[in-house]
């Protein structure tokens, strides 16, 4: 099993979610995060004070998939999340040893 972590633009969440569910991936976990990268931020001005805000709002999607679904998942995410403009985000794949479903105690692939 692998954990696929995608950092995407927030307004792409809905499209990515449906792309993943189209693949039959029935679960995922999403976190609001702030990203720093090549995409430049903006300046905020409050009376005399100017702040350069370099962190931009992003969505982090985490989905644990069977090892053989990784490629499909990554491709689906890219297709749904790409705008072609800087700041589209990244996908990271990392190993997962075990998975357990709390409700039933099922483990590994049957748990996800």
């Amino acid at each position, binding site marked *: 099993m692998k954990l696929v972590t995608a950092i995407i633009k927030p307004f792409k969440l809905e499209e990515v979610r449906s792309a993943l569910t189209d693949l039959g991936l029935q679960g995922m976990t999403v976190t609001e995060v702030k990203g720093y990268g090549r995409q430049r931020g*903006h*300046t905020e001005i409050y009376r005399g004070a100017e702040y350069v805000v370099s962190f931009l709002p992003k969505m982090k999607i985490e989905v644990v998939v069977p090892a053989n679904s990784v490629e499909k998942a990554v491709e689906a995410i890219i297709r749904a999340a790409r705008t072609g403009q800087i700041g589209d985000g990244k996908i990271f794949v990392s190993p997962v040893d075990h998975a357990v479903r709390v409700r039933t105690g099922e483990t590994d692939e049957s748990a996800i």
Partner: protein
Amino acid sequence: MKHGLLRRLAALVGAATLAALIATPALAVAPTPNKGDTAWMLTASALVLLMTVPGLALFYGGLVRTKNMLSMLMQVFFTVCIICVIWVIYGYSLAFSEGGTFNSFVGGLSKAFLAGITPDSTAETFSDGVVIPEYAYICFQMTFAAITPALIVGSMAERMKFSAIVLFIPLWATFVYFPIAHMVWYWAGPSATVQAAKSLASAAPDAKAAAQAAMDAVSANAGLAFQWGAIDFAGGTVVHINSGIAGFMGALLVGKRVGFGREAMPPHSLTMTLIGAALLWVGWFGFNAGSALEASGTAALAMINTFVATAAAALAWMLAEKFAKGKPSLLGGASGAVAGLVAVTPASGYAGPMGALVLGIVAGVACMFMCSAVKNAMGYDDALDVFGVHCIGGIIGAIGTGILASPALGGTGIFDYSAGKVADYDMVAQVITQAKTVCLTLVWSGVGSAILFTVVKALVGLRPGTDQEREGLDLVDHGERAYNY
């Protein structure tokens, strides 16, 4: 209390002499304000500002997404500020002074820069011989001029550039609001009317023609709709239909929000919306009861109607929602309250409380239907339902006023200054007059607004780029964010 019985004056004038004489005991002495009236009008003006900022700003602001909250607040706040300034420069004069050749449509510039007005100047109310300080009257009417264009911005929320708003608002006030206010509300005032009627009644046979001409001149010294006899107690036509149709045009011409219909756009804070709705309600007492221009029984009638119609409309919307969608919502309740407030505005000093109850129920259900079924079917993006609530609610109120003002239905009827008493009520005629005035406003404001939006588009453009719209107007237009928790 606005009314339009002048054209029937001549006929009634004979019988009216005695009453008029009694009502005007001391013609030589200029009347001075009653401090109770002044106290109430000062309070009412403060209440109407409260309606607008923070009231309307929050009502609208709560309904947009976080990233546009601040732009919403800013648009309303800016509107209030710019109107206050142009009001004292030329707005008051265009709306409420004699306009010479164009007097049926707009006032003149004799009061530009508030020329000649001092703390001792007075403005007439609707009772002969009762006046208030003119500055108080100017303040009160200023707040009306401020809230009306502010209502419009809700239609184009989340996608209209601030620079376009900055240009549009003063243009709209100048070419649409001031004329409409003049057409519906400007008249020569009770004292001139009563005077002319008296002269006519007591004129010797050889002076009859001259007296009649003077009487006609006084009757003609009024805005177009006022001459027709339209009644609009606190601005159902001038404020709500006027802004509602302008907003509708704006929504069409600016186009839909990026993602409209595909992405979820839930209100970012119904808490703010409820605060706004509640402050609108509270402030609306100034708006409606203040429109009596006196601290009188009529003001109290306007207040109770404003309580009852609002409550009834809120309940009606919630109940309709319960049946249509299964759950009564807070947004429904708040929207219903505003719909009720809008509808009762023109009727508040004319209808009885039971009439207001019925009016509220009708407005609540009808506006709910407009803002869900009809809007969804037609597919326009009137972001905050300015059309569905203000224009539709305003029309219901304007027509409803023609019905409910009838003494037979518990209304007050219309006061006839020449007779010194309430006139016989012709409901059909009045409803037709009301409908004519509604049409006048829809056309003038609809066409005028469309032209002005087109002009503004040509000059600075209406919308930001798509990426900018996605980022939100707060950062793009103002370089700041509403919240940094």
